């Protein structure tokens, strides 16, 4: 709203600042990564790394402008991230048990559930966190329509191996829809 009142200059400066910060951050990360990966550090390698990192930073900034990724929604997921390591170990046990059951011939086909996620949490990070442990696999991500709860949130379709709800899922801001 303030941008409309004060004209385009303020937003242009904001956008310029965002571009500069993003370019610098990407350049620094890529340069440090390059330094870690080479075998011996010489002056020629430094120059090459700086130039390559600049190319990569320009490409990343171009992509950021096109895609405009939503940053944020991480704080709501800190509890789930903290619950992840234990969940990973438990679900490896669940997978082993499922394999053993299948070898004995008494297998179970798992079930498909739908999870409704609150709008304050990043759907991409949630899906990655859920998929990273073997107990649940996200197979679809969809924005919820206006008539569905939770409003403005996202619906994740998961395939789960066992009937119990994992700690990561319990720590998520959202609940199962079916």
């Amino acid at each position, binding site marked *: 709203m303030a941008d409309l009142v004060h004209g385009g200059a303020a937003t242009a400066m904001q956008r310029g600042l965002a571009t500069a910060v993003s370019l610098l951050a990407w350049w620094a990360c890529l340069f440090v990564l390059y330094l870690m990966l080479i*075998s011996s550090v010489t002056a020629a390698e430094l120059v090459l790394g700086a130039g390559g990192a600049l190319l990569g930073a320009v490409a990343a900034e171009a992509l950021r402008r096109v895609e405009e990724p939503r940053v944020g929604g991480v704080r709501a997921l800190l509890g789930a991230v903290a619950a992840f390591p234990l969940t990973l170990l438990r679900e490896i046990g669940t997978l082993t048990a499922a394999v053993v059951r299948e070898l004995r011939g008494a297998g179970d086909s798992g079930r498909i559930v739908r999870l409704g996620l609150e709008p304050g949490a990043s*759907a991409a990070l949630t899906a990655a966190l859920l998929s990273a442990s073997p107990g649940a696999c996200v197979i679809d991500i969809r924005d919820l329509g206006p008539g569905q709860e939770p409003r403005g949130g996202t619906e994740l379709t998961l395939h789960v191996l066992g009937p119990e709800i994992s700690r990561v899922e319990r720590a998520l801001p959202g609940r199962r829809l079916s």
Partner: protein
Amino acid sequence: MNAWLISASVLLAAGMGPCLWRACRGDPAQRLLGITLGSAVAIAASLLIARGVERTSYVDVALVLAVLSPAGTLVFCRCLAGAGRPRAGNAPAGRGRTEGS
């Protein structure tokens, strides 16, 4: 023969074998699973072999595999799922990408 090379042999036989089996049978999406796990096993095997023959330059093979195999799998997914045709009852294919950062 040291522990690293023995581990690499065991991994290639018992790890890559099932992946190749899965990649040879079934419908295309199932075969893609075999290829994806196969690349993870290949990364592990090249790391172990690099350590086993004590040539650190072979670690770069594993690094390149780690960077390129997800991209390859995503290309296959795009080819198998069709070129983003919207379907009734489904959100358009663009929604299926993981959104955000």
